[in-house]
């Protein structure tokens, strides 16, 4: 009878249990990491048709975000500037640079530049830029230090729980309205002090501006 099952099979249950535990942990950890926005979206850096550098424009030249993204305070949508806006400067600066050929061509032909969209939310999420930037939420909260990026990459997961982090505790993220587009701004160079100040000032903003900590479904889904 037992010739079917050699002696080593008696160790089988232990081996199976160990194996299942190991594989199970691995799969769970893998799914946890690789199947979430933190992995699938963060770091997404597609090749853009024009090698536009935010680092040069926003950081070195000190241009305000809203010079180009001028609808951000008025619309749910933060617009990508039209080629004509690029040409405001670039018909003088670097006007013959080959890197800008696509922009010039677009301006002349009227055909838009096919920028690749990076920050994308599902259609059923109604994120509104204007209400955030007008009420003390900086660009940096969702887009990261885009002013340091030569090529834009997604910095934050932009998942629902990412949104909830801020919505549950707005005091930890609000800043003075004039510092919204200053992506390097900090309450203090000393991180400890900055944290304390953020808490104190943030709580004050929440109170004074009547900021609601909204985690209702209707806040984002309609």
């Amino acid at each position, binding site marked *: 009878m037992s010739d*079917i099952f050699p002696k080593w099979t008696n160790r089988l249950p232990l081996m199976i249990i160990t194996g299942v535990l190991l594989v199970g942990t691995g799969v769970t950890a893998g799914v946890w990491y690789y199947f979430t926005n933190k992995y699938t979206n963060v770091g997404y850096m597609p090749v853009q048709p024009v090698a536009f550098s935010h680092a040069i424009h926003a950081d070195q030249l000190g241009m305000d975000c809203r010079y180009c993204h001028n609808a951000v305070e008025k619309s749910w949508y933060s617009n990508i500037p039209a080629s004509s806006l690029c040409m405001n400067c670039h018909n003088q600066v670097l006007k013959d640079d080959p890197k800008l050929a696509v922009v010039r061509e677009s301006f002349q032909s009227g055909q838009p530049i096919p920028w690749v969209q990076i920050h994308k939310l599902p259609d059923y999420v109604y994120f509104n830029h204007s209400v955030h930037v007008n009420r003390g939420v900086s660009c940096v909260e969702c887009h990261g230090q885009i002013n340091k990026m030569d090529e834009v990459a997604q910095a934050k997961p932009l998942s629902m729980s990412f949104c909830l982090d801020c919505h549950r505790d707005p005091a930890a993220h609000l800043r003075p309205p004039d510092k919204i587009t200053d992506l390097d701004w900090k309450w203090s160079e000393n991180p400890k002090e900055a944290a304390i100040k953020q808490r104190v000032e943030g709580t004050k903003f929440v109170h004074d501006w009547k900021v609601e900590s909204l985690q209702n479904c209707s806040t984002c889904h309609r």
Partner: protein
Amino acid sequence: MADALVDFKTETRPASVPVGSALQIKAPPAELQREPLVTNQRSIGWISDAIAGVAEGKTPTWWWIAFVPSVVLMTTCFTMIAYLMSVGVGVWGPGHPVMWGWAIINFVWWIGIGHAGTLISAILFLLRQRWRTSINRAAEAMTIFAVMCAGIFPLIHIGRIWLGWWLFPIPNSNGIWPQFRSPLMWDVFAVSTYFTVSLLFWFMGLIPDLAVMRDRAKTKIRKFAYGLFSLGWTGSNRHWSNYEKAYLILAGLSTPLVLSVHSIVSMDFSVSQLPGWHTTIFPPYFVAGAVFSGFGMVLTLLVPLRKLLKLEDIITVRHVELMCKVTLATGSIVGYAYAMEFFIAWYSGNPYERYAFINRAVGPYAWGYWIMIGCNVITPQLFWFKKVRTNMLLVFILSIFVNIGMWFERFVIVVISLHRDFLPANWGYFRPTWVDILTYLGTFGLFFTFFLLFLRFVPIIAIAEVKGVTPQADPHHPLGGAKEGGHH
């Protein structure tokens, strides 16, 4: 060690048994005779032979005749599910205001059927009803397959089947959890627990019997398969000691489980505020109904099976009678519940409540209501008569009526309550579609495919348990070898 095979038929018969009266042993003294659970004084070895023989012998023709259509029906079921998933729930009948239709009816019906298995194996075990041993294995198998059929429906009835996993508390990047106030969440836990525990219970009971099969196996594949699943069971008494304790605990756990599952299923209705659903009587009424329907189904299955498999000595007329009595008792409880519902509706003074019940009896679906009353309240009353209980054909027919009646009970609750509720402007009607019907019939294919496979490969009666209840298994019984005056 192929020669290690033992020919059970020739070598192992107790020496005391004369060859001529092949499978019989001497009758005990008259004063010791009780109504036997195994008739014709069969020996312990015979029990093994008879039961294991079912799975070992040549596949009978009737099995194929039953199996082929079952597989066809099962395929139909899966085809219908694929059609449903690819098109939408609209291929079924539900609409405004009857948003649940056959799917939920079938779910409750199948899960109710499942209850008999657990009841037989757990509650009767705790109550020391030893007659359960010859039917519990098949009843448990029936439970598992019925719960499988039942479990399909809540899963496929939802609009976006591929998101069904949202009903489980799995961490996700949306940071959102299930809503545990919903009876449907309770259902998820109840049904999955029920299925799992039933399976464990069944499997545990199977371990010694699979060892029997292993030890009788002649082919390598059988040896391997039975050997693997019997987990190396030897029949050690030290093992039996733990085993019996565990079995007792499982029976103890299954008893409140079986009561809770249908109570929770009933809460799908009673927690709502719909007239006809919003009733405190539902949990006991549902449990009674479930047992009623479950016994109905056990009878439907076992009455022909004992004949086909020649197991009349193990599943005796007495067993059938006892099950008829349980059916009679639970059927009466169910009938009482129907009456009570009407009384409470009248007594409540709530016109909406009253209308809901009057509408059952005289509304557009009155036919459904009266089928239910006829099958569930009137037919079981025939079991008062011994003549009916012992007439196998009649029992078989009546058990089918019970099954039909209980399906209609769920139809009455789900559809008739929903179709006319508070605002008359909403009132509507429900009609099943061909997909509803084929899906439901398809689950019979699923059920019988599994059940027939179970008949072929697994001992359909708990061999060890049946052995344990025979007098010759009792060391204190003369047939068990005890000396005069017993021994303690």
